[in-house]
């Protein structure tokens, strides 16, 4: 009796859990001349006409929207969207990991931009509530430029978009060209100090270091943000040490044990705003430029 009871309960659970997937279906108009856009997750999203009410749940897209002078169409941003200044006055839709769905729905957006990773779960939920969602994320400068083009296309502002992307591409090409045949100094980018964490392959930072003519100390790591032991740092003795401008250069140089590092001895310790090298938005080029300057001061 108890055995069958268990099975029965399991079956009930099974049935209901399965049926719970995807309950509210939304009718989608199929207009013959509507446009279908593909986002970074491969989703094909139908967007009938340039959206007038836009919500950005990712700081990178927020920056892109403002850069494309679409600020007045932005109905909501996250608490983390701090650039540019105009973004600070936009209504907040919650944090990055857990945006407030109620506020999003209340704002009645035509489109919501999200990032990949932690926000992918959001997509299904927002779609269930009848909202158009578009996912944009990037791990390379190239992809960023493509994303900016995509936003421009969707929002129906081709000219300003082209001028921006062209400008960005130019700058990138310039730098890449200049460092082409140069020696590549070993660069260590400190993402965090306790525990010591750097950026590995597949990250922006890694791609930028490479583009800027450097060799990423953590370039052969297994994960995107590896925790390194101090031993590796000392063993590989980088030429250049870059950290988040959260830390002061002076503090870094006086860290116990660091005095033996080449970079410290030659005072090639630098800090910069890590938004410039992590946000897949228009400022990435600024980041690239700064890193290039740091790595090859003689060239820039």
């Amino acid at each position: 009796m108890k055995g069958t009871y268990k099975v029965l309960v399991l079956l009930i659970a099974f049935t209901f859990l399965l049926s719970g997937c995807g309950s509210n279906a939304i009718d989608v108009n199929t207009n013959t001349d509507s446009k279908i856009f593909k986002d970074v997750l491969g989703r094909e999203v139908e967007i009938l006409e340039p959206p007038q009410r836009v919500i950005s749940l990712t700081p990178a897209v927020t920056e892109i929207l403002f850069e494309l002078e679409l600020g007045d169409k932005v109905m909501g941003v996250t608490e983390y969207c701090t650039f540019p200044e105009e973004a600070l006055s936009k209504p907040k839709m919650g944090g990055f990991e857990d945006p407030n769905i109620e506020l999003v729905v209340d704002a009645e957006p035509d489109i919501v931009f999200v990032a990949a990773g932690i926000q992918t779960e959001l997509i299904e939920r927002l779609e269930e509530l009848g909202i158009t969602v578009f996912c944009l994320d990037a791990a390379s400068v190239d992809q960023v430029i493509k994303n900016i083009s995509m936003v421009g296309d969707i929002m129906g502002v081709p000219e300003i978009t082209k001028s921006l992307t062209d400008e960005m591409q130019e700058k990138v090409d310039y730098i890449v060209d200049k460092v082409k045949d140069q020696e590549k100094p070993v660069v260590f980018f400190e993402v965090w100090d306790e525990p010591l964490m750097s950026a590995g392959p597949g990250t922006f930072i890694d791609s930028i270091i490479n583009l800027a003519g450097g060799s990423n100390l953590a370039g052969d790591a297994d994960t995107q943000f590896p925790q390194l032991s101090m031993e590796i740092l000392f063993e590989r003795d980088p030429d250049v040490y870059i950290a988040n401008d959260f830390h002061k250069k002076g503090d870094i140089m006086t860290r116990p044990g660091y005095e033996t590092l080449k970079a410290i001895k030659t005072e090639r310790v630098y800090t910069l705003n890590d938004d410039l090298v992590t946000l897949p938005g228009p400022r990435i080029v600024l980041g690239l430029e700064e890193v290039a300057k740091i790595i090859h001061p003689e060239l820039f």
Partner: protein
Amino acid sequence: MELVDKPENPSVQLKSRPIGKIVFLAILLIFVCLTAVTIGPADITLGQTVKILLSEIPVLGDSIVLDDVKVSQQTIVLQIRFPRILLAALVGIALATVGATFQGLLKNPMADPYIIGVSSGAALGATIAIVTGLSAVLGYFAVPWMAFIGALISTYTVYNIARVGNSVPVYTLLLAGVALSAFMSAIMSFLMVLNSNEMQQIMFWLLGSFSARNWGHVQAAAPLILIGVVIINCFTRELNVMLFGDHTAQHLGIDAERTKKLLLTLGAFTAAAAVSVSGTIGFVGLIIPHGVRLVVGPDHRALMPISALVGGIFMVATDTFARTLLGSVEIPVGIITAMLGGPFFIYLLKRKKGSEI
């Protein structure tokens, strides 16, 4: 054999179920839920909310005019707030009921619904789902599903470790639960270190939250929780007697081992269902039954339903706090339950100690 010739009417009779209190609390729960539906960051008036709710009632609803209500507002009330509040109520009911059940079964007022491995198993299941990116493949139900399975596997393992022959002594159950929890926590931490990207997501899940829950979650959890809670409430007399020990229960005609196994199973399923949709919300399952016991006494026929209703009310209230306290950012509800639960419990304990001296 007649030891008594004829029954006389005793001058004092005992009430077993305080129906009055239960009805009152049930009404209070409904009231709290309805109030919570009207609260939220979006700008919707009370009148609009009432209209939206009434329009959903079959037949009567057709006569309600919704001109001044935007579609988005209807969506918010019916698709975002309502299911979330309902889920909070269900989870609160589930956790409080299972907490009371385990406290009675294990004869330990410090027991909670997670003690036999439910939370550590669910946490590990959720962690695995998150780090393997299962949601990308299976949708947002991947995590709850894995959490549910994890909770059940963990409980089953604890049960088998603790089993001595055909019986489950209380002390081995407690020890096995603690041991397995520690082990699973370790594995989880290890996975988190290897996948530091997802660490935040995992921690979030662990703290427990009702944000972004919808009708799908309610549909998934409601049947198990309701069945579990109702059946457990049918065993309140047995639980009462089992408080006096397995032998005494046996001598009063109760098959202690069978009842214990049944209640442990039901409790595990119910708690697993709750945890899978809301994460590991702490304190509710421990403090609510304990607090209620200090007020209404150890008789489970009163303790059980009252704990359930108080649990539901508490959960809805704290969730409402969690989602409105800081404007647009939500606090994970587990934090609020801990902050409210702890001090309130200390207060209850002091009051009880004072009256006993």
